[in-house]
């Protein structure tokens, strides 16, 4: 885990929820956990932390639930896991939210399954030739079982159909409900009249199969996306306002007017857009531009809300009220973008829109034709009902979700979390992949790429100094030096916009901008680069550092693979032109744009959409969140900001980008299987409808035909190619044995 992506204590606290008195629970996603030894290692690492009362890893969902004491400091959960060899990310409460609908569906399915199995048992003996008294008794028992089951399990369809009819629409549930109710009523009537046929088995199996499909579909439906809420939550609720007479009061954000002066201490976010009046600080602008390099702000500079003050203290004159701030603007942009995508209609819905009017008119026509031909209302009704039942969209209802569930499982095995079934359909349509640069194609934090300080006393000193600062450059230096012995530091001081200094073993070390560190002397040529940072001892140059953002593992391969799939590639960056151009040429990307603001990224995506393209956006930063919502389909790495992760359709848990072509390939396979399944279901219907219209459908035939089609569709979905790549499993096995060895120690 890179230091830049570790969530702050506040963020952990916000993502936690109270479970008992004084105990908070935090959910972590640990995608690399996969075996029994992992359970021991993960839980052991978490339980050893101070304040943690219980830790539990769920191997199926690869999520760890940690309970810890609220009063103490926040335990370094992610750090402990990283040390044990597991990358983990915070799993926010919104993503984990309870799902009452799922429980309702499973209970209804269980009840329908219970009734269907028992009625089928009785029906088999009727079909086998049970006669007279016995048959009537069996029908009666079936009726007693079917009635409550239909009322309990079928209500999900009835309610949905009723809602559709009330708003003068029709959906798949309307023919289903009519079919179920008519068949039930006719069967009850026949049971009372001691008739030879009853359709209780067909009715309950119909409900059972449909509910299985519905449950799977629900599993794939989008969960509530609270991206926008998350954005607002990151902002401070208020700010310290300095009145003209010098008194300081803490006011809620909404009450602060333009022209007011607010104080922003080190470690706080800037609450409102404005200009610096006094003070100086380095600002982390990741929220605004997505770039990791901090900007120095001095008196007179304009600052935007959402920037994080890394050091120093600032007094800001507010330029705009809260409703007009940069963050508010982003929130509005995301909401607007969401609306655009909501227009996408899922394949299953489009199929249903064609399907239900067709079935309605067919059943009605069958009834009228038979009525006109034979004049026997009972016979006509039986034919109409058998048309409704035999064309039941069971197979149709299973065709799409079954494939998507299998595909989602395959993706999960590869470390890709799918949030929404329709995303898989949209992903298969994507024809251009748009990457963000910093944090997506690259790792997003500067790494030391050149260091002229020799290991020894000076390097230890600089590591000790750097470990005291939050500046990304300092963190990179501290990470480079590792955890060697650190000398004592006296008189540590952080000078915003310049660097850090401290006295070690009597010498004054300065780390920072060349002109400041050398005390006004001109910089040594060749060191004054974009992030040129030098170390001086008592004013004399001892060495310099250079930083750059390194590409994410597998970036090049992944881009090659995406090209191989026939998709175009573009890069949109908020960074400077030279930096973007360098990265683009090193990765072989021809089309790129640099220096973009969030709205420019959206504009580019809309331009692509107007030209008929379906862009897949891969991005991570908060500044990418609106673009992620605006794109046809979007992905974010797990290291992305909370909001970015929430706005994306797919989240990549691994650190490599190869997952992107992997997901694209899986989506295309899924689309092929879905189409096959739909074709199977339609072909099957074309085959049985004439039989039903001719009036040859007996209860036995209806039951067999219905089950067969569903089984066929499910079997086809299970043909989904398994995860094959041998190297990946080998690697897994290797790390597994390594971890076992670690645990044994």
């Amino acid at each position: 885990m890179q230091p830049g992506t570790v969530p702050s204590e506040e963020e952990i606290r916000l993502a936690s929820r109270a479970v008992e008195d004084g105990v908070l629970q935090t959910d972590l996603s640990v995608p690399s956990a996969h075996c029994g030894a992992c359970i021991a290692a993960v839980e052991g690492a978490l339980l050893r932390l101070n304040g943690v009362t219980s830790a539990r890893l769920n191997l199926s969902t690869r999520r760890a639930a940690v309970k810890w004491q609220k009063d103490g400091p926040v335990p370094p959960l992610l750090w402990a896991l990283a040390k044990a060899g597991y990358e983990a990310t915070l799993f926010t409460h919104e993503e984990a939210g309870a799902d009452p609908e799922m429980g309702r569906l499973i209970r209804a399915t269980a009840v329908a399954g219970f009734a269907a199995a028992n009625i089928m048992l009785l029906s088999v003996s009727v079909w086998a030739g049970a006669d007279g008294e016995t048959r009537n008794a069996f029908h009666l028992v079936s009726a007693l079982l079917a009635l409550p089951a239909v009322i309990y399990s079928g209500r999900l369809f009835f309610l949905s159909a009723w809602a559709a009819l009330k708003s003068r629409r029709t959906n798949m549930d309307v023919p289903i409900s009519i079919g179920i109710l008519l068949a039930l009523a006719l069967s009850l009537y026949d049971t009372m009249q001691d008739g030879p046929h009853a359709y209780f088995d067909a009715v309950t199996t119909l409900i059972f199969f449909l509910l299985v499909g519905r449950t799977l579909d629900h599993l794939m439906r989008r969960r509530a996306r609270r991206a926008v809420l998350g954005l607002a939550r990151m902002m401070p609720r208020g700010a310290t306002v300095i009145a003209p007479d010098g008194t300081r009061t803490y006011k809620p954000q909404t009450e602060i007017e333009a022209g007011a002066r607010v104080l922003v201490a080190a470690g706080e976010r800037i609450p409102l857009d404005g200009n610096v009046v006094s003070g100086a600080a380095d600002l982390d602008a990741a929220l605004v531009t997505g770039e990791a390099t901090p900007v120095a702000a001095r008196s007179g500079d304009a600052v935007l809300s959402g920037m994080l003050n890394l050091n120093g203290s600032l007094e800001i004159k507010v330029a705009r009220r809260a409703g007009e701030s940069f963050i508010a603007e982003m929130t509005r942009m995301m909401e607007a973008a969401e609306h655009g995508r909501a227009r996408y209609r899922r394949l299953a819905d489009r199929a249903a829109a064609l399907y239900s009017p067709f079935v309605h008119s067919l059943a009605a026509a069958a009834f009228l034709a038979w009525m006109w031909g034979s004049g026997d209302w009972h016979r006509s009704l039986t034919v109409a009902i058998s048309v409704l039942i035999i064309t039941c969209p069971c197979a149709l209802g299973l065709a799409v979700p079954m494939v998507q569930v299998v595909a989602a499982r395959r993706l999960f095995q590869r470390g890709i979390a799918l949030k929404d079934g329709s995303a898989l359909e949209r992903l298969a349509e994507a024809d251009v992949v748009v990457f963000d640069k910093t944090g997506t194609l690259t790792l997003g934090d500067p790494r030391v790429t050149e260091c002229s300080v020799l290991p020894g006393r000076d390097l230890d000193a600089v590591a000790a100094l750097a470990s005291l600062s939050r500046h990304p450059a300092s963190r990179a230096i501290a990470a480079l030096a590792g955890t060697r012995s650190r000398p004592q530091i006296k008189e540590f001081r952080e000078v915003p916009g310049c660097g850090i200094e401290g006295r070690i073993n009597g010498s004054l070390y300065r780390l920072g901008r060349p002109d400041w560190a050398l005390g006004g002397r001109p910089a040594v040529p060749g060191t004054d680069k974009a992030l040129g940072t030098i170390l001086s001892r008592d004013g004399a140059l001892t060495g310099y550092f250079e930083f750059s953002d390194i590409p994410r593992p597998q970036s090049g391969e992944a881009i090659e693979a995406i090209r191989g799939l026939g998709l175009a590639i573009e890069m949109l960056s908020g960074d400077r032109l030279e930096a973007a151009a360098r990265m683009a040429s090193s990765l072989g990307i021809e089309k790129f744009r640099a220096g973009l603001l969030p709205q420019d990224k959206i504009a580019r995506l809309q331009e692509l959409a107007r030209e008929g393209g379906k862009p897949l956006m891969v991005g991570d930063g908060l500044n990418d969140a609106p673009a992620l919502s605006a794109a046809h389909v979007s992905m974010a790495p797990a290291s992305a900001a909370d909001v970015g992760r929430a706005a994306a359709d797919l989240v990549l848990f691994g650190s490599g980008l190869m997952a992107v072509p992997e997901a694209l390939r899986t989506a295309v396979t899924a689309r092929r299987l879905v189409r096959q399944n739909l074709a199977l279901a339609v072909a099957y219907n074309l085959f049985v409808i004439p039989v039903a219209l001719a009036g040859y459908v007996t209860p036995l035939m209806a039951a067999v035909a219905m089950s067969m089609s569903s089984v066929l569709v499910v079997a086809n979905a299970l043909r989904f190619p398994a995860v094959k790549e041998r190297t990946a499993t080998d690697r897994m096995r290797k790390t597994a044995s390594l971890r076992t060895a670690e645990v044994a120690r």
Partner: protein
Amino acid sequence: VTVLVWLIPIALGMAAVALVAFLWSMRNGQYDDLDGAAERVLLDQKEDRPVTDDSRRR
């Protein structure tokens, strides 16, 4: 025919027990971590209940 008077209620009763058992096990969180349960047998731990979200049940 008389034997059916006994057998059918018995069959239904057995199935009903299965249904109730399923609903109970689901509510109890028995299916929350199927992979973990298989591995935990091998670990030397006292507590082996699956994690359930207490706040959700209340």
